[in-house]
């Protein structure tokens, strides 16, 4: 292998290695159970407000509201109802949350489960093996 070839392999491996951490972060940040802290929304009394997550872990949500006098913890069933499947919060009429009040919702949701989590978790390992494989193969070729 000539100098140009060596440089190209090193560039390829550097690109792959640089992208390894983002890949690893993307996998860990989007698979399994994920926590969302203080997602903001605006209350619309009687109407469900959709949040970013889905498949929310039962009773993991905490809703805070601000009617203009600071943040207060809302009570499930009295102030709001929560749909775990679609991750939506509905401010209940007769509750303490005013229409248009600012909401902060913290919850855990199941980004992926079962085999998908297991297989997706293997992806960083395969990326690392690919980087190692390229280096090893090129070394064997006489790098």
């Amino acid at each position, binding site marked *: 292998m000539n100098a140009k*070839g060596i440089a190209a392999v090193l560039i*390829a491996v550097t690109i792959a290695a640089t992208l390894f951490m983002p890949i690893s972060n993307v996998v860990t940040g989007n698979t399994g159970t994920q926590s969302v802290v203080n997602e903001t929304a605006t209350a619309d009394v009687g109407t469900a407000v959709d949040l970013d997550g889905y498949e929310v872990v039962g009773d993991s949500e905490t809703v805070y509201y601000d009617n203009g006098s600071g943040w207060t913890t809302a009570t499930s069933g009295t102030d709001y109802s929560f749909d775990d499947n679609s991750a939506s919060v509905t401010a209940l009429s007769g509750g303490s949350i005013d229409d248009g009040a600012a909401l902060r919702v913290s919850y855990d949701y199941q980004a992926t489960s079962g085999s*998908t989590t297991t297989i997706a978790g293997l*992806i960083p390992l395969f990326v690392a093996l*690919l980087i190692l494989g*390229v280096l090893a*193969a090129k070394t064997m070729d006489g790098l």
Partner: protein
Amino acid sequence: MLDFMKMTAKSAVANARSEDRAQTNLVGLFIGLMIAAIVAIQVFIPVVNDAIASSNVSGTEATILGLLPLFAALLLLIALASPLMRRI
């Protein structure tokens, strides 16, 4: 002698071109796989899961749709595994 030199030079140029192409392919492969991994995991899987959660599908339809993220992850794993099996 001149013919031999010309042939050697041509052969060297051909080898260099072929090697350049191989290295370009290697860089392209890495970049492609990394982009595919990020798009599949950060975009495809959450979007499909969100769509399933916010739609009213149930039974067999929900089961099949629920398998899509698994298949995306499998596809990605195979895409990463095949160059490994070929030892690049």
